């Protein structure tokens, strides 16, 4: 009960803080939309020039990109504070949070929401709407359920990647670099079929589970046959829980960094 009250109060406060400078929020929201539509421009131009990459066309690639944008937006909205986990370690904020009688995970989440990530979600939804007709997606109840499953799965994967960055920040380096590497690879390169890359790269991308974040589940949604596609959509939860467990375990050996 106390936890629910904590979440509600924190969320109300975060909303209040966010909307104090409403015009700034709108500007940043538009900037986010523009930036990610800008990234999409390159994909659009390339696919218009080459027509296909293996047997995928512009709409397949756009759909995977859109799924990534929506999932990334949701994760960023909820777990944005894990992006700054290394700052928590360096400044000693983590030490203060750890001695409070409340879940550390929840405390970090409720310290901030990046509402401007609604921009990513807006871009993603816009692109999904654009490809609905060319890909002949019919939004029946089952398809909507499958799409939601797809988004939740991808969001959990990306959340897990945020936690990997946070875990690395406890020990070695600024985990931001690792997280950015994975996130940028996902956005710019893993929206194409894996066969576009050499075999050893394919193996690395599949075994590191990166292809299971958005690409394989999106193929499952679009009905592209592959023995792994159906499984990929339920891997997000165990991945997230596994990384969450490791993060918790690593926190036990955390000795404090602040003053």
């Amino acid at each position, binding site marked *: 009960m106390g936890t629910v009250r904590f979440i509600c109060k924190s969320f109300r406060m975060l909303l209040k803080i966010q909307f104090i400078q409403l015009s700034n929020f709108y500007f940043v929201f538009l900037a986010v939309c523009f930036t990610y539509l800008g990234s999409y421009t390159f994909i659009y131009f390339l696919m218009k020039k080459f027509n296909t990459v293996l047997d995928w066309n512009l709409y397949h690639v756009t759909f995977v990109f859109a799924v990534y944008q929506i999932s990334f937006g949701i994760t960023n909205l909820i777990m944005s504070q894990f992006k700054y986990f290394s700052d928590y370690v360096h400044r000693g904020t983590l030490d203060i949070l750890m001695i409070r009688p409340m879940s550390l995970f929840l405390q970090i989440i409720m310290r901030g929401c990046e509402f401007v990530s609604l921009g990513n979600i807006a871009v993603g939804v816009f692109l999904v709407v654009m490809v609905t007709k060319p890909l002949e997606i019919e939004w029946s109840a089952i398809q909507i359920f499958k799409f939601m499953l797809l988004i939740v799965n991808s969001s959990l994967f990306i959340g897990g990647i945020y936690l990997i960055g946070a875990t690395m920040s406890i020990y070695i*380096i600024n985990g931001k670099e690792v997280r950015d590497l994975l996130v940028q690879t996902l956005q710019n390169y893993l929206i194409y079929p894996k066969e576009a890359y050499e075999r050893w790269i394919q193996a690395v991308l599949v075994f590191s589970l990166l292809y299971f974040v958005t690409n394989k589940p999106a193929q499952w949604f679009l009905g592209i046959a592959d023995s792994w596609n159906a499984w990929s959509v339920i891997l997000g939860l165990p991945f997230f829980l596994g990384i969450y467990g490791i993060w918790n375990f690593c926190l036990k050996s955390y000795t404090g960094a602040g003053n």
Partner: protein
Amino acid sequence: MGGITYVYKMIRISLLSHLALRSSYYLGLFRECLFLLLSIQLFRTLYSGTGTVLSATLTETVTYIIISKFAQFFNMSTMGRIQSRIISGEIATDLLRPVEYDFFMLVQEFGAWIQRILSITFPIVLLSLLFVRFYPPSSISYGLCFVLSLLLSFLIMFFANYCVSLAAFWIPYLWSLNSVSTTLFIILSGAMIPLWFYPDGIRNVLEWLPFSFAVYMPINIYLGRIAMAELPILFLKQAVWILILWLISRFIWSKATKKIIVNGG
């Protein structure tokens, strides 16, 4: 002479501070190599599957991607630096310096750019020499013209960035402006993919804007896709854009210094 010593010191400081965070440096280098590798493989697949005749060969595209690493001017920190100095009040000290503010900023950015070339671009090009087939400059004279054009393109990008950065005197939060301008610069300059992949109509317009002179044109010189006789005109166009952007920046600066309100200090 003092100016050259200052530039040298800025490059040295920038390089040393960058290399001080070794794990971060190695990870950054790994990331650049990985992205380059994935880009090249993606283009190989795209080229192998297309039946249409394109205006550039695969090797030219691969060369473009590798050589464009010399022209990565897009993460300039001018905006952040000006903003933080306005907020902290340090801008007041900067205004008292016996050098023009744009020159002061230019030297810092130049140092950061050279540091990036030495620590990131050269290792990438050396690695690419071992594993990837790409073209050397078409001739020694084209190579020298490429270097000259690259220096001019750095100035174009600096002044374009500087003009936008001066908005810090009016706007307190610049994240959105920075993000939009960086995205625009990258799209318009051909930094991510060559402009020859853009639709013809868009490319024809972009070839007149200053941004295409920042990345696309210098690499076209490197590749020998521009005739030697046309190069003086190209350099002239670059110089004209530098002059225009410099004049705009002087105009904004004159307005900004009259309006300045120093917080803190």
